[in-house]
């Protein structure tokens, strides 16, 4: 029984927080400030609690499993949701339904935790749905804006579509292998065309969630229409969670057909990097821009996944952590500006430095890290991803990736140039930064600087992945 509580500790804490929020909602009226303080405190507790009393093990006939690596992945997500919550302070302060928003968000986080811990395709599917459906509701949270409703509709319908195909894939796998457990599938999967087709459907489901071309088209519309908090949540947390599962599923469950998925990932990553970049170049809305640039970033992550299992897993987790800090630094500034002025156009950011030097620097550091300029952490993240990819000797892929890295410099730096160098008679006025968002931004900047320079983090992740899977993986 104690095993149950310790192994499911992180899920249980989220549930308790959800119940506390429900209880507060039923109770007497509280001001938004009080509620936000309370929620942020609870999220901080949730993040901190992730570091204690951890144990590895399985529950419910291997339906649910947890390892040190999984705990670390969940901690990364908890950190992300804490930062996002701190950043949305200005937006939520004047919102009527603060608690509902958090209940929805935490439900999706719960879904992600179950998904990461799943040892069975059904469990995985449940987690995935739990992490998607509430998000569609959250996307609609700019209640007055039509675009927000549109984003929610698009998200829910395209998710339903992808889930349909994913379920089809799962049933085909069940039909051909006779099992849904991960260990069972590994022993039964072969290069049988029907099984490959099932795998492709599954892959498409994953690809949809992490916006891999050509399954990415929902991304830009949804990102643009949703409130910034939801956009950053979608682009960092839900993407990160699915990536964690994706990596482990590919390296363990579908290892017997690794030669097939290597080729698929190769093709998808080339497409994703190139098309993501091409679209990012011509965006004028900064949220849409970040959406497309994050598509290109996922392309780089796929390059890392094509490497060997240990380096691949390490570099992906490490990069997701860095990507979390960098993207949230950028989104944090965008969310402040958007909440205060409603401006979301890149041209509005011209000469932003003159009025808001601190925010300008945060945004610039975030963009530098996204672009991968040394010595920010983004450089190290991309470096390790490419190293991992290069391990397979596919230099064509590495060349494409490196070329696109250069192209991405161009569009990231275009924004930096607008902020610092372009003349503008009416720059965005000086913004007051409330305490919580300020803390969140500093956390992001510190993360960007330290994650790269302090090698402990990378080594730590590396040591955990070593435990997770010691069998060398042979690609191609």
């Amino acid at each position, binding site marked *: 029984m104690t095993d149950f509580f310790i192994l499911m500790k992180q899920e249980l804490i989220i549930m308790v927080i959800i119940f506390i929020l429900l209880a507060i909602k039923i109770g007497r009226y509280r001001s938004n400030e009080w509620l936000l303080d309370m929620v942020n405190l609870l999220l901080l507790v949730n993040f901190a609690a992730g570091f204690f009393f951890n144990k590895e093990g399985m529950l419910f006939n291997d339906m649910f499993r947890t390892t040190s690596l999984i705990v670390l992945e969940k901690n990364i997500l908890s950190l992300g949701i804490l930062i996002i919550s701190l950043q949305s302070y200005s937006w939520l302060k004047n919102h009527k339904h603060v608690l509902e928003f958090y209940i929805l968000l935490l439900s999706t986080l719960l879904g992600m935790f179950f998904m990461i811990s799943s040892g069975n395709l059904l469990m995985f599917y449940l987690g995935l749905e739990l992490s998607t459906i509430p998000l569609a509701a959250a996307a609609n949270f700019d209640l007055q804006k039509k675009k927000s409703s549109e984003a929610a509709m698009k998200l829910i319908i*395209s998710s339903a579509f992808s889930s349909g195909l994913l379920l089809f894939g799962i049933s085909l796998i069940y039909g051909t292998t006779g099992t849904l457990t991960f260990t069972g599938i590994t022993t039964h999967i072969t290069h049988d065309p029907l099984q490959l087709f099932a795998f492709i459907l599954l892959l*498409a489901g994953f690809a949809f969630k992490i916006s891999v071309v050509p399954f990415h*088209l929902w991304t830009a519309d949804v990102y643009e229409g949703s409130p910034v908090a939801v956009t950053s949540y979608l682009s960092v947390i839900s993407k990160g969670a699915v990536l964690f599962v994706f990596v482990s599923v590919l390296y363990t469950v579908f290892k017997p057909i690794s030669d097939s998925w290597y080729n698929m990932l190769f*093709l998808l990553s080339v497409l994703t990097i190139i098309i993501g970049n091409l*679209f990012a*170049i011509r965006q004028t809305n900064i949220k849409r821009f970040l959406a497309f640039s994050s598509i290109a970033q996922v392309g780089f992550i796929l390059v890392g996944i094509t490497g060997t299992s240990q380096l691949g897993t390490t570099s992906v987790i490490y990069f997701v952590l860095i990507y979390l800090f960098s993207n949230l630094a950028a989104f944090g500034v965008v969310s402040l500006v958007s909440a205060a002025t409603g401006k979301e156009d890149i041209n509005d950011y011209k000469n932003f430095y003159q009025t808001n030097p601190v925010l300008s620097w945060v945004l610039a550091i975030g963009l530098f890290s996204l672009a991968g300029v040394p010595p920010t952490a983004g450089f190290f993240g991309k470096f390790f991803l490419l*190293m991992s990819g290069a391990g397979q000797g596919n230099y064509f892929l590495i060349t494409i990736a490196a070329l696109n890295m250069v192209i991405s410099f161009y569009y990231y730096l275009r924004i930096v140039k607008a902020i610092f160098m372009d003349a503008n008679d009416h720059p965005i006025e000086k913004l007051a930064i409330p305490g919580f968002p300020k803390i969140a931004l500093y956390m992001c900047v510190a993360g960007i600087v330290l994650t790269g320079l302090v*090698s402990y983090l990378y080594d730590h992740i590396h040591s955990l992945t070593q435990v997770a899977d010691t069998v060398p993986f042979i690609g191609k």
Partner: protein
Amino acid sequence: MNYSIIALIPLLPLATFILLGLFGRKYFQTSGGIIATVALLASAIISLYVTYHYFFIDGKVNGTYRHITALNYTWLEFSPGISIDMGILIDPISMMMIVVVTFISLMVHIFSLGYMKGEDRFSTYFAFLSLFTFSMLGLVLSTNIFQLYIFWELVGLSSFLLIGYYFYKPSAVAASKKAFIVTRFADLGFLIGILMLGFHAQTLDISTLIQNLTNHQSPQFIGITTASFLGVSLLTWGLSLVFIGGAGKSAMFPLHIWLPDAMEGPTPVSALIHAATMVVAGVYLIARLFPVYALSAPQVLEIIMSVGAVSALIAAIIACTQTDIKRVLAYSTMSQIGYMMLALGVSKYGGEDGLGYIGSMFHLFTHAFFKSLLFLGAGAVIHFIHSNEMKDMGGLRKLMPLTHITFLIACLAIAGIPPFAGFFSKEEILLAAFRANKFIYGIALFTAGLTSFYMFRLYFSIFWNKPSTENKTGHHGEGTWSMKIPLVVLAVCSLLAGLVPFANYITSDGAVLNATNNIMFSIVPVAVSLGGILLSAYLYKKENDKPVRAAALFGTFYKAAHKKFYIDEMYLFVTQRILFNLIARPAAWVDKNIVDGFMNLTATTTGKVSESIKAMQSGRLQSYAIYFFGGVIAMAALFIYWWK
């Protein structure tokens, strides 16, 4: 004993640098010098204590000094084995170097308190000095060859800052740029060299690297010696490239052209950087990797020997003709470092055969004292006269008695007259050269004669030559106490440093050796040196026209030497005429017409493609679903039936 206290030695100057660099101009404009000096005094005391502990208490195991890794922090790990570490390596030469660096730096700090007084950027000057000291200490204590490289570059940077300290003087700015660029070229060789060695030895850790590359059975050694480029093994390439890096920093021919110009910096800086510490970094680097050179690639040592001999000779000849006293000292530094390189080149590994190595390190040690003394003395003279030119000096021995005595001691030391410090170290080098190669011994001996000649030419020109009454510029005394103390301390060191039984502490393989001086052997070199002194006394002691006539006797040769053998002009010709026309112009054309064209093409193509695929992102959900489904079908077709 726990040697991690050593970390304080470089960290104290670093702390001073940060403090003075950030707040110096605001809060410590006048007290900055004292702060830096006190911090460095602490560093010097710690390093003396640690060195004492190492050499006399627990460094020796079974008659051999051990290598200790006091601290090692893995900073970035590329792959198992290959990582960039930050650490502290303790062995005889690193211990000797920390004493030399902290001690000389301390003397220079004290001297600068008086010399730089009243400068506008007084605290900035000390901030730079601290940065330099920190970098140099980090360099000598490195455990990892990449760490060494990082500090190596930092040393170059702080040297650049210090040479260009008088940034309002165009010549100083040009000199600092020249030093930076020339050494940067050499460092490129160094970087490629360490990447080659590190890659093939599968480690960047110095001790492991030496182990892997000296064990002739190890797979790493076999790998690096069988791989070759242009018919030469990669080991030879790597070690030669590393030597090029060292030669750049140590001003070896033909990469020495930056050193004389670097004298534009404040004189105490020249004493610290361009005499005692930074310029010997190249020698230290070769000594650090000496087992690899000696055991695995003796052919590279022959290159080092030749380069050292040529540098020693050429620099000594040029020094005889220069009239700017700091330039004479600069060439003399180059010549003496050539000596050290030559000694490493003739040395072998282990025991009695490693005499050259011992001599080289010994000379590095003694040279640091008397050369910095010469520079500081020259600084005092320049401070007094306000000129660098010999013709403005003369007859100063009465006006500057203390400077005169200390300068004389230093001159006797560098000329190799017993019992001064230079005698002992030079004897070992000459003996090693004599045993290895008679021709090189001849060059070294001739250079020794030249050395005593030009040093005493300098001495007589400054302190004798004219009657003392002629010089009335001395509006102030010889200098403040802070300028006098370092002179006296260094003079005492120049007198006594040679008496250290060096072979007992530092040998090529760490094993203690009892070397004795051979008195019979010393007769010839000492006689040659005395001859040089007598000749210069004959020519320069009194004001006369003998030097001019002597110069006329040598005619073109004198002129060529005076113009430094036109080496600078050759560089100019090669870079401006040949490189510019043959490489830069075509490169500019390619850049303008092909690279730019390609870039523009890429940009326009990207823009066009981006425009044409925008229809994909229509905003209509049903078309998104089509793309989604199309993607699944296409992948299925592709991967199941076609690209299995």
